[in-house]
């Protein structure tokens, strides 16, 4: 195998007895990663337990208690490699009482394998784990519909399980979901294609794992270097840390937060002092600055024009992991975030989430073991942070009990809710469930002339033809009325997006599908609209119309690119103003995607 191959981190999920450990055993066995002495020991133990065939699950269940009870208690890490890739599998437990260990295994995963028993379909624990995968921001998910041998290799049954999962997944934020019918016991479609499911046209699981594209899952846009350790040696003073986002180069202007002092990157060193021309995540580097500053562990280096939030009030989703305590408003805890350590007080529990039905219980008074909810926290010192959606490294934290020192919660930062204290919301008499249809917002973003409006018009036509209320809010049209007072400065663009987002949310709340076609170049503005929808419990589907600027410019239906190139238009996106593509859009459409009708059908599919 090649040194230099890319590493893919996998986490398994699914109910107990759905066959996760057997699937991993099968992956390892069929990819020849089990060595002779391990196999011999496996055969010996399988025989001793009275089995007539090799029990592959015994390979991962390594603890005495696990083998005695035949279940997985704690995360086991397994390794295997193919000539194309190397893999680390976090094999996580399916039992409800070990959900916290699933969270442990999934927090660093690139891809989650959700194992579903074809006979039983989507059980509560599969839903819980799919939701957790979405919550933890795992970008890729493969639903392994296992035990196909026990449903006579039925294509219909596979389609039913798949449809059931897809219905559930529309309410989650997972960009990429694949489905593979398989039998881990017999090995069909795990490493090799099985002959008994000729109706399945996709690739076996391993092929998918080798091909899935993960290089762009990192945030390479917002530069962040949390200072982990200050290296002093003679005259040398360097700031060591792991790049958490974006790209740094020698000569870059940087600002140190929370102090706000600015300087310039004098040099970047890799391990052992190797001079680097560029540093990116997840490199461990040492940075020297041009000025002699007081920079400490816990400080963050970033760019003057691209700063994380600095503040003492944080809104977050929290998964409670402590079994001897619970989260209650007023509780004081230690908050460990990136390289920062501070005390935090729980200001409020906004709601507790039922991870099976996704229902929000706003009357909840506490979170206990394995429960998830939205909380507001107040920290003792200012926290330098991003939202988890923008950056997993600078948007995550753990909470630690001050007396027992146990890790009691995993937290993910959300965008703060904007509250207007003098305005009191009027309670409606009609609830969302009373309405005939369910609404949603589909937000199409992309460069000018990318094809957003053309697509939105077709989506609207298809939805209305299917009897679903829909209405198009076109970027150009709203500027003729609602937003006629706005120009094209960054502030005005932000306000334009905010207003359109508010109108879309009202449409969605009324049961209509709001279709928004708007360049909306800044990620932060779009994320704010998303947060407002999430806060209201409404689906927000971001569709990135990813047409290269050369193609857009060649089309140029309104002659805008030509005018921008001539200098007649200032601040034109893609020419002299930036466009920030979504990091995790629900859908990406490219010009080679098969025509407007087909692309529109994919958008409609998101709303099914």
């Amino acid at each position: 195998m090649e040194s230099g191959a890319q590493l893919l981190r996998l986490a398994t999920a699914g109910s107990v007895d759905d066959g996760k450990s057997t699937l991993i055993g099968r992956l390892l066995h069929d990819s020849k990663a089990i060595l002779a002495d391990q196999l011999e020991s496996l055969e010996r133990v399988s025989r001793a337990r009275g089995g007539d065939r090799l029990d592959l699950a015994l390979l991962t269940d390594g603890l005495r208690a696990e083998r005695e009870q035949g279940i997985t208690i704690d995360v086991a890490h397994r390794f295997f490699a193919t000539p194309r890739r190397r893999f680390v599998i976090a094999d996580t437990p399916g039992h409800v009482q070990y959900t916290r260990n699933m969270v442990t295994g999934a927090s660093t995963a690139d891809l989650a394998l959700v194992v579903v028993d074809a006979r039983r379909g989507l059980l509560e624990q599969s839903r819980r784990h799919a939701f957790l995968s979405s919550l933890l921001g795992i970008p890729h998910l493969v639903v392994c519909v296992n035990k196909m041998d026990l449903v006579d290799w039925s294509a219909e049954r596979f389609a039913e399980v798949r449809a059931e999962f897809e219905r559930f997944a529309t309410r989650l934020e997972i960009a990429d979901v694949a489905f593979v019918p398989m039998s881990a016991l017999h090995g069909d479609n795990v490493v090799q294609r099985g002959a008994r499911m000729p109706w399945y046209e996709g690739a076996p699981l391993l092929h998918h794992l080798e091909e899935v594209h993960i290089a762009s899952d990192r945030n390479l846009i917002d530069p962040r270097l949390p200072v982990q350790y200050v290296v002093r040696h003679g005259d040398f003073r360097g700031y060591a840390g792991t790049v958490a986002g974006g790209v740094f180069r020698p000569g870059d202007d940087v600002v140190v937060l929370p102090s706000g002092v600015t300087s310039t990157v004098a040099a970047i060193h890799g391990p052992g002092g190797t001079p680097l021309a560029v540093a990116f995540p997840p490199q461990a580097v040492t940075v020297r600055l041009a000025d002699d500053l007081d920079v400490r562990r816990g400080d963050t280096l970033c760019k003057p024009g691209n700063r994380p939030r600095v503040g003492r009030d944080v809104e977050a989703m929290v998964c409670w992991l402590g079994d001897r305590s619970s989260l209650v408003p007023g509780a004081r805890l230690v908050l460990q975030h990136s390289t920062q350590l501070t005390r935090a007080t729980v200001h409020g529990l906004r709601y507790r989430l039922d991870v099976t039905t996704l229902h929000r219980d706003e009357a909840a008074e506490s979170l206990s073991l394995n429960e998830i909810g939205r909380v507001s926290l107040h920290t003792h010192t200012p926290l330098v942070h991003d939202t988890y959606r923008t950056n997993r490294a600078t948007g995550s934290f753990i909470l630690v009990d001050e007396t027992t020192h146990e890790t009691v919660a995993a937290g993910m930062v959300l965008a703060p809710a904007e509250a207007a204290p003098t305005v009191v919301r009027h309670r409606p008499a009609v609830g969302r469930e009373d309405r005939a249809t369910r609404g949603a917002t589909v937000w199409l973003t992309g460069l000018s002339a990318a094809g957003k409006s053309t697509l939105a018009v077709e989506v609207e036509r298809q939805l209305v033809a299917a009897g679903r209320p829909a209405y198009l809010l076109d970027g150009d049209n709203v500027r003729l009325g609602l937003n006629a007072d706005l120009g094209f400065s960054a502030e005005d663009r932000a306000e334009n997006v905010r207003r359109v987002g508010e109108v879309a949310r009202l449409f969605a709340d009324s049961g209509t599908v709001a279709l928004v076609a708007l360049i909306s170049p800044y990620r932060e503005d779009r994320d704010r609209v998303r947060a407002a929808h999430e806060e209201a419990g409404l689906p927000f589907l971001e569709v990135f119309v990813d047409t290269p600027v050369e193609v857009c410019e060649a089309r140029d239906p309104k002659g805008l690119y030509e005018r921008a190139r001539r200098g007649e238009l200032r601040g034109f996106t893609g020419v002299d103003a930036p466009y920030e593509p979504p990091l995790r859009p629900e859908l990406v459409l490219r010009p080679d995607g098969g025509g407007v009708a087909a692309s529109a059908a994919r958008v409609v599919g998101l709303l099914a």
Partner: protein
Amino acid sequence: MTRDRAAEDYALPHPGALEAESAHVFREVAATFERPVLLFSGGKDSMVMLHVAVRAFWPAPPPFPVLHVDTGHNFDEVVEFRDRVVRDTGVRLLVARVQDDLDAGRVVEEPGAGRNRLQTATLLRAIAEHRFDAVFGGARRDEEKARAKERVFSLRDEHGQWDPRNQRPELWNLYNGRHRRGEHVRVFPLSNWTELDIWSYVRDERVELPPIYYAHRREVVERDGMLFARTPHLVLAPGERTRPATVRFRTVGDATCTGCVESTAATDDEVLAEVAASRVTERGATRADDRVSEAGMEDRKREGYF
């Protein structure tokens, strides 16, 4: 489009990604603990660990000493090598001797059992005497199934014991090292490395290893299907005969229970090719004490071993 192209340009291929993860762990411990120590036997995993530590704190030396738990049953080549490396690196070497615990009657040697198990008492004594609060170990999750269950930061109680059913959740790269007085944390920077990763790194970084890792001629004796080197510590049973063979070691430990394999691999590239083609794990091939029972490692870890 541009985004994908940029992402490919900024790829950190393995094992650079593993080194970065390990460096992060070293720095985290150095920043948050008072008295860390690195366990160092002179073997390949501890050499890689020391090499990464040296690189993580460049240009300063690693801000912690190294500790050798010495069974007294050493290969002479390894001890010479250990002393030279420590001198060159500029770190402080501490040695805790199993013989001292034997002499004081704190542990008793079982005939023919080797001294691996006795190391636990010596290690725990050294930790208590020096009041170490973080102890780096070179254990890898690919080595053995109980180690596959291990966290990167593993809390040990005042008796050095591991409780596999009550491990702390470990999320993202946020490591919780908080502990009470008397407790300590075992830290495993190489958790996600495999034997092959170690050898790739040894080759790419030109990490020097003791000569016994490469093919050489020596007298060996065959016992329980394994080959043991003829050393002053190995007592031959009646009827056992030694023979010359060309061998190398895949692991280095107590000379009485660490076997060698017949091999002609004399360079890093040759060893790498041999490891990639091997059908037996390094412990299965060369560690007699792992053959004792199905849960041998788990039991030893519970007692305070690595």
